[in-house]
Protein backbone atom coordinates (compact mmCIF):
# COMPACT_ATOMS: atom_id res chain seq x y z
CA UNK A 1 0.00 0.00 0.00
CA UNK A 2 1.20 3.51 -0.73
CA UNK A 3 1.35 6.15 2.01
CA UNK A 4 -1.71 7.75 0.45
CA UNK A 5 -3.66 4.48 0.66
CA UNK A 6 -2.55 4.05 4.29
CA UNK A 7 -3.77 7.51 5.30
CA UNK A 8 -7.04 7.04 3.44
CA UNK A 9 -7.52 3.72 5.24
CA UNK A 10 -6.83 5.41 8.60
CA UNK A 11 -9.51 7.98 7.80
CA UNK A 12 -11.97 5.24 6.74
CA UNK A 13 -11.36 3.26 9.94
CA UNK A 14 -11.83 6.39 12.01
CA UNK A 15 -15.12 7.16 10.26
CA UNK A 16 -16.29 3.61 10.94
CA UNK A 17 -15.37 3.99 14.61
CA UNK A 18 -12.76 1.21 14.45
CA UNK A 19 -9.76 1.72 16.75
CA UNK A 20 -6.42 1.24 15.04
CA UNK A 21 -2.71 1.72 15.51
CA UNK A 22 -0.15 2.84 13.01
CA UNK A 23 3.32 1.24 12.98
CA UNK A 24 6.03 3.09 11.04
CA UNK A 25 9.65 2.14 10.47
CA UNK A 26 11.57 5.18 11.75
CA UNK A 27 15.15 3.92 11.71
CA UNK A 28 17.02 0.99 10.19
CA UNK A 29 20.54 -0.38 10.15
CA UNK A 30 21.94 -3.22 8.08
CA UNK A 31 19.64 -5.22 5.79
CA UNK A 32 15.92 -4.92 6.43
CA UNK A 33 13.04 -6.03 4.21
CA UNK A 34 11.49 -2.55 4.14
CA UNK A 35 12.98 0.89 4.55
CA UNK A 36 12.30 3.95 6.69
CA UNK A 37 8.74 5.18 6.23
CA UNK A 38 7.10 1.79 5.55
CA UNK A 39 3.81 1.54 7.42
CA UNK A 40 1.29 -0.98 8.69
CA UNK A 41 -2.11 -0.40 10.29
CA UNK A 42 -3.22 -2.86 12.98
CA UNK A 43 -6.81 -2.93 14.23
CA UNK A 44 -8.05 -4.23 17.57
CA UNK A 45 -9.31 -7.48 16.01
CA UNK A 46 -5.85 -8.19 14.59
CA UNK A 47 -6.69 -7.16 11.02
CA UNK A 48 -3.77 -5.42 9.37
CA UNK A 49 -3.21 -3.30 6.26
CA UNK A 50 0.14 -2.66 4.60
CA UNK A 51 3.38 -4.31 5.62
CA UNK A 52 6.56 -3.51 7.53
CA UNK A 53 8.39 -6.52 6.17
CA UNK A 54 6.43 -9.66 7.04
CA UNK A 55 7.74 -12.60 9.02
CA UNK A 56 8.30 -12.87 12.75
CA UNK A 57 9.47 -9.24 12.97
CA UNK A 58 6.07 -8.11 11.79
CA UNK A 59 4.33 -10.27 14.38
CA UNK A 60 6.40 -8.59 17.13
CA UNK A 61 5.09 -5.30 15.83
CA UNK A 62 1.52 -6.62 15.83
CA UNK A 63 1.87 -7.67 19.46
CA UNK A 64 3.14 -4.22 20.38
CA UNK A 65 0.28 -2.63 18.45
CA UNK A 66 -2.36 -4.66 20.28
CA UNK A 67 -0.67 -3.90 23.60
CA UNK A 68 -0.78 -0.17 23.00
CA UNK A 69 -4.28 -0.31 21.56
CA UNK A 70 -5.91 -2.53 24.17
CA UNK A 71 -3.90 -1.93 27.29
CA UNK A 72 -1.46 0.97 27.59
CA UNK A 73 -2.99 3.49 25.14
CA UNK A 74 0.44 5.05 24.76
CA UNK A 75 2.77 4.98 21.76
CA UNK A 76 5.89 2.88 21.96
CA UNK A 77 9.16 2.32 20.14
CA UNK A 78 9.78 -1.28 19.19
CA UNK A 79 13.17 -2.55 18.13
CA UNK A 80 13.10 -5.55 15.83
CA UNK A 81 16.29 -7.51 15.35
CA UNK A 82 16.72 -9.52 12.17
CA UNK A 83 20.05 -10.95 13.27
CA UNK A 84 19.09 -14.59 13.91
CA UNK A 85 21.65 -17.22 12.95
CA UNK A 86 21.18 -18.60 9.45
CA UNK A 87 20.48 -22.05 10.94
CA UNK A 88 17.40 -20.80 12.85
CA UNK A 89 14.21 -22.33 11.49
CA UNK A 90 11.84 -19.56 10.40
CA UNK A 91 14.35 -17.10 11.80
CA UNK A 92 14.73 -13.42 10.93
CA UNK A 93 18.05 -13.61 9.14
CA UNK A 94 18.01 -10.47 6.96
CA UNK A 95 20.96 -9.10 8.91
CA UNK A 96 19.71 -5.75 10.20
CA UNK A 97 17.72 -4.03 12.88
CA UNK A 98 14.76 -1.72 12.60
CA UNK A 99 13.11 0.65 14.98
CA UNK A 100 9.37 1.13 14.71
CA UNK A 101 7.10 3.73 16.22
CA UNK A 102 3.74 2.25 17.13
CA UNK A 103 0.96 4.70 17.99
CA UNK A 104 -2.76 4.41 18.70
CA UNK A 105 -4.75 6.81 16.48
Amino acid at each position, binding site marked *: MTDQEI*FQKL*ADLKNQGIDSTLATIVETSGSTPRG*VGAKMIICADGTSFGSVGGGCGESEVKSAALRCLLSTQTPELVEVSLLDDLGTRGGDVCGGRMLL*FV*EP*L
Partner: protein
Amino acid sequence: MDVITRVNELLENEKTFCLATVIASDSAEILVGSKVVVLGDGSLEGGVKSPSLNVALRDQALSAINNRKSCSAEIKAGVRVFFNVLCSEARLLICGAGHIAIPLARFANDVGFSVTVLDDRSDFAYPSRFPDCTTVAENFTIALRDMALGPSSYVVIITRGHEHDVDCLMEILPKEAAYVGLIGSRRRVGFVLQWLEEKGFSKKLLKSVYTPIGIPVGAESPQEIALSIVSELVCVRRKGNAQARALRAAVGIEL
Protein backbone atom coordinates in the same frame (compact mmCIF):
# COMPACT_ATOMS: atom_id res chain seq x y z
CA MET B 1 -9.40 19.42 11.40
CA ASP B 2 -7.53 16.39 12.69
CA VAL B 3 -4.11 15.58 11.33
CA ILE B 4 -5.15 12.51 9.31
CA THR B 5 -7.83 14.50 7.49
CA ARG B 6 -5.28 17.24 6.82
CA VAL B 7 -2.68 14.75 5.53
CA ASN B 8 -5.25 13.25 3.16
CA GLU B 9 -6.24 16.70 1.94
CA LEU B 10 -2.61 17.63 1.20
CA LEU B 11 -1.98 14.32 -0.59
CA GLU B 12 -5.10 14.77 -2.70
CA ASN B 13 -3.81 18.21 -3.67
CA GLU B 14 -0.49 16.66 -4.77
CA LYS B 15 1.58 18.47 -2.16
CA THR B 16 4.96 17.24 -0.95
CA PHE B 17 5.30 17.90 2.77
CA CYS B 18 6.63 16.52 6.02
CA LEU B 19 4.68 14.95 8.86
CA ALA B 20 6.85 15.26 11.97
CA THR B 21 6.04 13.00 14.92
CA VAL B 22 7.68 13.08 18.34
CA ILE B 23 8.80 9.47 18.91
CA ALA B 24 10.73 9.91 22.16
CA SER B 25 10.73 12.71 24.72
CA ASP B 26 11.96 13.12 28.27
CA SER B 27 10.19 16.46 28.59
CA ALA B 28 6.75 16.68 30.20
CA GLU B 29 5.94 19.57 27.86
CA ILE B 30 6.53 17.63 24.65
CA LEU B 31 4.29 14.59 24.33
CA VAL B 32 5.33 11.46 22.51
CA GLY B 33 3.04 11.02 19.53
CA SER B 34 2.40 14.74 18.96
CA LYS B 35 2.48 15.71 15.31
CA VAL B 36 3.34 18.76 13.27
CA VAL B 37 2.74 19.20 9.54
CA VAL B 38 5.51 21.17 7.81
CA LEU B 39 4.73 22.40 4.31
CA GLY B 40 7.27 22.94 1.54
CA ASP B 41 7.27 26.72 2.13
CA GLY B 42 8.31 26.15 5.75
CA SER B 43 4.97 26.91 7.37
CA LEU B 44 4.03 24.84 10.41
CA GLU B 45 0.60 23.46 11.25
CA GLY B 46 0.51 22.51 14.91
CA GLY B 47 3.74 22.71 16.85
CA VAL B 48 5.47 21.98 20.11
CA LYS B 49 5.42 24.34 23.07
CA SER B 50 8.78 25.91 22.42
CA PRO B 51 9.54 28.49 19.72
CA SER B 52 13.18 27.47 19.46
CA LEU B 53 12.29 23.79 19.06
CA ASN B 54 9.78 24.70 16.37
CA VAL B 55 12.58 26.41 14.44
CA ALA B 56 14.79 23.31 14.75
CA LEU B 57 11.86 21.14 13.74
CA ARG B 58 11.10 23.25 10.69
CA ASP B 59 14.73 23.30 9.52
CA GLN B 60 15.07 19.54 9.83
CA ALA B 61 11.72 18.99 8.08
CA LEU B 62 12.67 21.23 5.17
CA SER B 63 15.95 19.42 4.72
CA ALA B 64 14.05 16.09 4.69
CA ILE B 65 11.61 17.50 2.09
CA ASN B 66 14.48 18.77 -0.08
CA ASN B 67 16.26 15.42 0.07
CA ARG B 68 12.95 13.55 -0.42
CA LYS B 69 14.12 11.30 2.40
CA SER B 70 12.35 10.49 5.66
CA CYS B 71 14.59 10.30 8.72
CA SER B 72 14.55 10.58 12.47
CA ALA B 73 16.66 13.08 14.38
CA GLU B 74 17.13 14.51 17.84
CA ILE B 75 15.99 18.14 17.81
CA LYS B 76 17.04 18.63 21.44
CA ALA B 77 18.69 16.37 23.97
CA GLY B 78 16.08 13.78 24.88
CA VAL B 79 13.56 14.74 22.16
CA ARG B 80 13.58 12.57 19.05
CA VAL B 81 11.35 13.27 16.05
CA PHE B 82 10.53 11.22 12.98
CA PHE B 83 10.35 13.34 9.83
CA ASN B 84 8.17 11.55 7.31
CA VAL B 85 8.26 13.06 3.82
CA LEU B 86 4.93 12.43 2.13
CA CYS B 87 3.96 13.03 -1.48
CA SER B 88 0.98 12.06 -3.54
CA GLU B 89 0.60 8.80 -5.35
CA ALA B 90 2.33 8.44 -8.69
CA ARG B 91 -0.12 8.81 -11.57
CA LEU B 92 -0.01 6.70 -14.69
CA LEU B 93 -1.54 7.88 -17.94
CA ILE B 94 -1.99 5.12 -20.52
CA CYS B 95 -2.56 6.39 -24.08
CA GLY B 96 -4.24 3.59 -25.99
CA ALA B 97 -6.78 1.19 -24.51
CA GLY B 98 -5.98 -2.00 -26.44
CA HIS B 99 -4.90 -5.47 -25.28
CA ILE B 100 -1.85 -4.41 -23.27
CA ALA B 101 -3.69 -1.60 -21.51
CA ILE B 102 -5.88 -4.05 -19.58
CA PRO B 103 -3.16 -5.93 -17.64
CA LEU B 104 -1.04 -2.77 -17.54
CA ALA B 105 -3.79 -0.78 -15.81
CA ARG B 106 -4.44 -3.66 -13.42
CA PHE B 107 -0.80 -4.28 -12.44
CA ALA B 108 -0.06 -0.55 -12.13
CA ASN B 109 -3.09 -0.12 -9.89
CA ASP B 110 -1.90 -3.00 -7.70
CA VAL B 111 1.51 -1.42 -7.16
CA GLY B 112 -0.01 1.92 -6.17
CA PHE B 113 -0.30 4.03 -9.30
CA SER B 114 -3.45 6.02 -9.81
CA VAL B 115 -4.33 5.12 -13.41
CA THR B 116 -6.03 7.02 -16.25
CA VAL B 117 -6.67 5.34 -19.62
CA LEU B 118 -7.16 7.50 -22.71
CA ASP B 119 -8.31 6.38 -26.15
CA ASP B 120 -10.30 8.08 -28.90
CA ARG B 121 -12.52 5.00 -29.19
CA SER B 122 -15.33 4.92 -26.65
CA ASP B 123 -15.80 1.19 -27.27
CA PHE B 124 -12.28 0.68 -25.86
CA ALA B 125 -11.95 3.36 -23.17
CA TYR B 126 -14.88 2.62 -20.88
CA PRO B 127 -14.98 2.10 -17.11
CA SER B 128 -15.90 -1.59 -16.84
CA ARG B 129 -12.93 -2.53 -19.05
CA PHE B 130 -10.61 -0.76 -16.57
CA PRO B 131 -11.83 -1.32 -12.99
CA ASP B 132 -10.60 1.27 -10.44
CA CYS B 133 -9.21 3.48 -13.21
CA THR B 134 -10.34 6.73 -14.78
CA THR B 135 -11.19 6.37 -18.46
CA VAL B 136 -11.25 9.20 -21.00
CA ALA B 137 -12.74 8.60 -24.46
CA GLU B 138 -11.67 11.56 -26.53
CA ASN B 139 -9.41 12.60 -29.38
CA PHE B 140 -5.80 12.21 -28.14
CA THR B 141 -4.66 15.73 -29.02
CA ILE B 142 -7.65 17.48 -27.51
CA ALA B 143 -7.66 15.42 -24.33
CA LEU B 144 -3.90 15.75 -23.76
CA ARG B 145 -3.83 19.48 -24.46
CA ASP B 146 -5.91 20.11 -21.32
CA MET B 147 -4.36 17.40 -19.18
CA ALA B 148 -2.02 18.54 -16.41
CA LEU B 149 1.11 16.43 -15.99
CA GLY B 150 3.85 16.92 -13.39
CA PRO B 151 6.78 15.38 -11.53
CA SER B 152 4.62 12.47 -10.31
CA SER B 153 3.19 11.72 -13.77
CA TYR B 154 4.15 8.58 -15.71
CA VAL B 155 2.99 8.24 -19.31
CA VAL B 156 2.87 5.06 -21.39
CA ILE B 157 2.03 5.42 -25.08
CA ILE B 158 0.61 2.23 -26.57
CA THR B 159 -1.79 3.49 -29.20
CA ARG B 160 -2.92 1.42 -32.16
CA GLY B 161 -1.02 3.44 -34.77
CA HIS B 162 2.10 5.50 -35.18
CA GLU B 163 0.16 8.59 -36.21
CA HIS B 164 -1.55 8.54 -32.80
CA ASP B 165 1.84 8.08 -31.10
CA VAL B 166 2.96 11.28 -32.83
CA ASP B 167 -0.20 13.13 -31.73
CA CYS B 168 0.35 12.03 -28.12
CA LEU B 169 4.06 12.89 -27.99
CA MET B 170 3.46 16.32 -29.58
CA GLU B 171 1.32 17.22 -26.54
CA ILE B 172 3.21 15.29 -23.86
CA LEU B 173 6.85 16.13 -24.61
CA PRO B 174 6.55 19.87 -23.83
CA LYS B 175 5.15 19.00 -20.38
CA GLU B 176 7.00 17.80 -17.32
CA ALA B 177 6.73 14.09 -16.48
CA ALA B 178 8.70 11.55 -14.46
CA TYR B 179 8.58 9.00 -17.29
CA VAL B 180 7.44 8.82 -20.89
CA GLY B 181 7.52 5.43 -22.59
CA LEU B 182 6.62 4.51 -26.18
CA ILE B 183 5.91 1.03 -27.44
CA GLY B 184 6.79 -0.18 -30.91
CA SER B 185 9.24 -1.91 -33.17
CA ARG B 186 12.47 -0.11 -33.97
CA ARG B 187 11.05 0.80 -37.38
CA ARG B 188 7.84 2.22 -35.95
CA VAL B 189 9.47 4.20 -33.13
CA GLY B 190 12.28 5.28 -35.44
CA PHE B 191 9.70 6.78 -37.76
CA VAL B 192 7.86 8.51 -34.90
CA LEU B 193 11.03 10.00 -33.41
CA GLN B 194 12.35 11.14 -36.78
CA TRP B 195 9.06 12.84 -37.57
CA LEU B 196 9.11 14.65 -34.23
CA GLU B 197 12.70 15.72 -34.78
CA GLU B 198 11.68 17.24 -38.08
CA LYS B 199 8.92 19.08 -36.20
CA GLY B 200 11.62 20.72 -34.06
CA PHE B 201 11.83 18.57 -30.92
CA SER B 202 15.43 18.33 -29.70
CA LYS B 203 17.37 15.06 -29.94
CA LYS B 204 17.99 15.23 -26.19
CA LEU B 205 14.28 15.42 -25.39
CA LEU B 206 13.48 12.60 -27.81
CA LYS B 207 16.22 10.47 -26.26
CA SER B 208 14.51 10.82 -22.87
CA VAL B 209 11.58 8.74 -24.19
CA TYR B 210 11.83 5.11 -23.05
CA THR B 211 11.59 3.21 -26.31
CA PRO B 212 11.40 0.33 -26.99
CA ILE B 213 9.48 0.27 -23.73
CA GLY B 214 9.92 -1.85 -20.62
CA ILE B 215 12.54 -3.78 -18.68
CA PRO B 216 13.93 -6.42 -21.08
CA VAL B 217 12.53 -9.66 -19.70
CA GLY B 218 11.75 -11.17 -23.09
CA ALA B 219 8.04 -10.36 -22.86
CA GLU B 220 5.76 -11.63 -25.62
CA SER B 221 2.13 -11.82 -24.50
CA PRO B 222 0.20 -8.64 -23.60
CA GLN B 223 0.39 -9.64 -19.92
CA GLU B 224 4.15 -10.16 -20.08
CA ILE B 225 4.64 -6.86 -21.87
CA ALA B 226 2.50 -5.12 -19.24
CA LEU B 227 4.64 -6.71 -16.51
CA SER B 228 7.82 -5.49 -18.20
CA ILE B 229 6.43 -1.94 -18.48
CA VAL B 230 5.21 -1.87 -14.86
CA SER B 231 8.61 -3.15 -13.71
CA GLU B 232 10.19 -0.18 -15.45
CA LEU B 233 7.70 2.24 -13.84
CA VAL B 234 8.48 0.82 -10.39
CA CYS B 235 12.21 1.07 -11.08
CA VAL B 236 11.96 4.74 -12.06
CA ARG B 237 9.70 5.50 -9.09
CA ARG B 238 11.90 3.76 -6.52
CA LYS B 239 15.41 4.08 -7.93
CA GLY B 240 15.25 6.83 -10.52
CA ASN B 241 16.02 7.06 -14.21
CA ALA B 242 19.70 6.12 -13.95
CA GLN B 243 18.98 2.60 -12.72
CA ALA B 244 16.21 2.00 -15.27
CA ARG B 245 18.57 3.15 -18.04
CA ALA B 246 21.36 0.95 -16.67
CA LEU B 247 19.10 -2.13 -16.83
CA ARG B 248 18.37 -1.38 -20.48
CA ALA B 249 22.01 -0.70 -21.27
CA ALA B 250 22.94 -4.07 -19.77
CA VAL B 251 21.30 -5.84 -22.71
CA GLY B 252 22.23 -3.26 -25.31
CA ILE B 253 18.94 -1.36 -25.65
CA GLU B 254 20.48 1.98 -24.70
CA LEU B 255 23.17 2.81 -27.17
